[in-house]
């Protein structure tokens, strides 16, 4: 079974973001970038499926500027076999990303797609579901356990009420939640080996699909800041303030 893992290069989760002064977006220049943490979990899951003999080959793909090659190399060092960068300067919306991934899935004859459930920059949580729709495949979103056997994927999903288990026919798309696995750190020998692994670059416009924007970003602003309040000295003072000052005890 051939797996595709879709990854995104985002501002590192430890960085405190800054909104640009002209309100056109968030500052990314001179900012530490990393692989979206949910996508790391997707790469790890694919590598584990390969180690278990279920997946035979892992293709990792991303869409973006030439620097995104770093993110692909990280995935290759973790255990992916082959990488594809769909190069573009444009900020692609989830629908456009899904359309591009669909082309890759068909070209590379993919049977299983893994992706993070959301990217921590735009927090959209859409691409996996959209790709599933375009391919007519089933989707296992927010996965916290994946078991593939007898031509089916059994997915445990993290839902608001608890956990839900569903069964999907294959091929299928799985989007990963936090507790699916703990991604490995790439070892130095594997980082060296990853430099020799194939990384293809294609231009987004060469794919011949409509990736135009459907949304116009009018502005990006900082939310109103919450001010720190007061420190209380004791539980007694806390309860007194909650009752009489904040009126929060009913």
């Amino acid at each position: 079974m051939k797996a595709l893992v879709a990854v995104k290069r985002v501002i590192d989760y430890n960085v405190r973001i800054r909104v640009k002064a002209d309100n056109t977006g968030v500052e990314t220049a001179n900012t530490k970038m990393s692989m979206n943490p949910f996508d790391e979990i997707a790469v790890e899951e694919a590598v584990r499926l390969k180690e278990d003999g279920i997946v035979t080959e892992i293709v990792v793909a991303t869409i973006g500027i030439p620097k995104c090659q770093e993110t692909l190399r990280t995935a290759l060092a973790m255990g992916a076999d082959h990488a594809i960068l769909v190069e573009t300067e444009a900020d692609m919306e989830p629908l456009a990303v899904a359309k591009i991934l669909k082309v890759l899935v068909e070209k590379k004859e993919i049977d299983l797609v893994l992706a993070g459930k959301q990217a921590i920059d735009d927090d959209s949580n859409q691409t996996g579901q959209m790709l599933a729709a375009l391919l007519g495949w089933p989707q296992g979103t927010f996965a916290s356990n994946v078991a593939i056997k007898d031509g089916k994927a059994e997915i445990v999903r993290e839902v608001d009420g608890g956990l839900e288990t569903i069964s999907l026919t294959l091929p299928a798309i799985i989007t990963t939640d936090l507790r699916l696995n703990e991604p490995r750190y790439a070892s130095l020998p594997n980082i060296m080996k990853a430099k020799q692994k194939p990384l293809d670059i294609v231009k987004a416009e060469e794919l011949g699909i409509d990736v135009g924007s459907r949304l116009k970003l009018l502005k990006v602003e900082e939310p109103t800041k919450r001010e720190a309040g007061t420190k209380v000295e004791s539980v007694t003072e806390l309860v007194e303030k909650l009752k009489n000052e904040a009126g929060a005890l009913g």
Partner: protein
Amino acid sequence: MSVLVVAEHDETGIQPATRHTIAAACELNTDTHLLLAGKGDIESASRIEGVVKVLVASDEQYNHALAENLAPLVVKLACDYSHVLAPATTFGKNVLPRVAALLDVAQISDIVRILSADTFVRPIYAGNALATVQSLDPIKVITVRTTAFKAVSAEGGSATIEAVEVTKASNLSSFLRQELSKSERPELTSARIIISGGRGMQNGENFKLLEEIADRLGAAIGASRAAVDAGFVPNDYQVGQTGKIVAPDLYIAVGISGAIQHLAGMKDSKVIVAINKDEEAPIFQVADYGLVEDLFKALPALAEELDKVL
């Protein structure tokens, strides 16, 4: 044109998230229709304030809201509507992007404000920035952050009921089982008071200390990602960017340091209390009332103190 809301509901009834979403729909247009797919409480649906028509697709393929079956139904109905809305819960987040892609339109996630029929505000970067976006699509497919819109009443409406033709089942997916947390306490996303524990709780056993307080206040119990990752409590307790977004009247954070991703899930609470022995913890920067004390001393004392005043 009218607005279609896809109801989140199950055998226990219609989820409160649905009524928050209807509130957003009513801001857009007064002609709000509610789609009830699968086995559902049609009677209750028709009484919800603001709903003009309930569309019923009672076929068992829609039970458990499998996206592969539900999305084609919504797509078939969508052409008669200007907007299709669902709550930004795991239900809506699962189904609506699939609907949008089948319609070849964008999906707008997690809106917190409606500026006009095509312009919306939504948080990005865990709520550390707010984006204003304008949709250029003919049909706007939107998930709604429930805490940003006050729920309409469950009573007062008198909607007409209309059966809709069901779609063909996909047979791509099937529901096997669910393990839902059972609790006598209010549900996190609709609770008026929440008390949450973090890594400082040290283990799951110690959450009993929070239960003592929750029982006195009628509060729901939440947790930080650290506490869930450490296995203290199940995943459905998690409050944060990737867990539940809450905005109660009172949020009490106990032994929670206040990572960005946790703050993203609770910083719109009306009053925030932080109890932490580390006075440098970032949670104090958003707390209205901060108490620097060991939680194992503070919680029993808080229980006693509450008994005096309640």
